């Protein structure tokens, strides 16, 4: 062997070097997950087709029977669907992390000299990157059915950034669920049910004003409703009626705060669970 490496194992000493090395670790794990996704085109195609199905199903099948006062239903719906997709990242990360846990892949990573947060950060960041093609398809669909960034492109971009932040936070919810689930199937069930409830008992598909009173309260205080309202505000889409609920009156601040608080709590809690030696 021409190359002698023993002794070349680099160890960072000062905090700045450690940070640089940790960022490098995150880049490596992210690359790994993106490369993995690339060799599973069937999964990517599925995730790309999903939004198309949603647009056709809700925009035309159900949408044909829904009349939105003072607005265009499919425009209203599209902004809601953009927000709703943030929930799905949670479920896919939960299943992926639970699979890694059950197959011992996580154990292998734990014996490597990488930053403690790198594996989970790589996984969650990769989820956003891998989701970009389906976001592009969805934007195309939206433009076809008549949705427009009516508040201007910069606002729309800020809107997508806000949704990505919330989606990133939701993927950490998924990571936490995945760490605690007993199996990938359990992780799927555990994460899909809340995503379903949050997704449908909300203002994604219909204005909350028409719901029975008890359900209306739930839908209005549903955190996803604030995210949807924030998306509609940033995209310049009509809100389909007003609600005197603080979170819906200040949706952008609420969404930003929820995203940041969730990340501030979930990242340390989940990483600690990951590094626990038992």
């Amino acid at each position, binding site marked *: *062997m*021409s*190359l*002698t*490496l*023993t002794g*070349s*194992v*680099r*160890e960072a000493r000062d905090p700045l070097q450690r940070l640089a*090395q940790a960022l*490098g*670790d995150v880049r*490596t*794990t992210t*690359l*790994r997950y993106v*490369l*993995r996704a690339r*060799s*599973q085109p069937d999964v990517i195609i599925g995730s790309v087709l999903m939004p198309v199905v949603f647009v056709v199903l809700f925009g035309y099948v159900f949408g044909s029977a829904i009349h939105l006062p003072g607005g265009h239903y499919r425009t209203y719906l599209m902004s809601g669907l953009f927000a709703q997709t943030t929930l799905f990242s949670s479920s896919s990360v939960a299943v992926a992390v639970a699979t890694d846990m059950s*197959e*011992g*892949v996580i*154990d*292998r990573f*734990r*014996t*490597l*000299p*990488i930053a403690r947060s790198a594996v989970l950060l790589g996984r969650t960041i990769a989820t956003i990157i891998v989701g970009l093609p389906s976001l592009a398809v969805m934007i195309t669909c939206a433009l076809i059915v008549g949705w427009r960034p009516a508040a201007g492109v910069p606002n729309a971009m800020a809107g997508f950034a806000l949704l990505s932040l919330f989606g990133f936070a939701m993927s950490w919810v998924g990571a936490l669920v995945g760490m605690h689930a007993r199996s990938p199937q359990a992780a799927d069930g555990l994460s899909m049910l809340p995503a379903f409830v949050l997704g449908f008992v909300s203002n994604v598909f219909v204005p909350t004003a028409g719901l029975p009173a008890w359900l209306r309260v739930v839908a209005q205080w549903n955190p996803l409703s604030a995210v949807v309202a924030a998306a509609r505000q940033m995209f310049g889409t009509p809100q389909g009626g007003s609600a005197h609920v603080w979170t819906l009156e200040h949706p952008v601040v609420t969404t930003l705060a929820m995203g940041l608080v969730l990340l501030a709590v979930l990242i340390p809690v989940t990483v600690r669970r990951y590094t626990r*030696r*038992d």
Partner: protein
Amino acid sequence: MPEEAIRAEGLVKSFKKTRALRGIDLTVRTGTVLALLGRNGAGKSTAVRILTTLTRPDAGSAIVAGFDVIRSAERVRARIGVTGQGPTVDELLTGRQNLVIIGRMFHLSPQQARLRAGQLLEQFGLADAAGRLARTYSGGMRRRLDLAASMIAAPPVMFLDEPTTGLDPVSRAQMWQAIREMVTQSGTSVLLTSQYLEEAEQLADDVTVINDGLVAASGTPRQLRESVGQANVRVVLRDADSSAAGRLGALLGPAARIDGRVVTLAAPDGLGSLADVVARLHPIAAEVDDVALQRPSLEEAFTILTSARPSEDGARPEHAMAGAR
């Protein structure tokens, strides 16, 4: 490099219901291979998990590659390679991608990682398959890729957890060859666990047998074999002719045991005893079919050592001191 690549003392670990380890010591001398043997559930995996920083012991201490596994886990991780039974190879990456990514995780530069990946793919006979997804690899190829991945940063200490379980004999022989080359070429110290005694015979300089969470014996494979019984010279006659057996018995003395056409005699001096018997056989040489020195097998030693039930207070079975350093 310290004289001992791994030194563990008094490792104790209990899980909810079971006491997996009840105080084991083990040592791997630098540049040698230690085989850790034991039946399923004896505590091998728990010991390996502690030494690879995955599990924290309830008591005891361990130094691996010069660092404490509890206090300096990060430094230990930078100096060990781990390959196990699990699917540690990523099936959705190509062979080369697998190696480069692990190399980057060991903080090799991109160039170093690629260079090293190329060398290892060549060394392990995977160069032709380097660009294929690991999903398409055979079981033997995956194990070799896995071994290559854990060697990417040329760690001074390697853990091979049942490296050939489930492989066919040809793949197993290739894997053994790869492990031998690794030890002789890079001076790597290895802790190997195995269910196959032949694997220990083939690869190990030293053997530690654990049973019920305790060290049942440790020493060289030879010391272990000899601890459970001595060698015999076995003479086989052409015919089950009692007169020939009688004459042979007379030549060898009263210690010889006669059983039909087979006569056995203890061989305290090994080959010396064999030579001695052969010399005495001269008068009846025409009637002898075969003479051989029979050593007890590691298999027998293992069976005896692992069927001993340590008493509840943790006292070690009789063989514990075999070859103790």
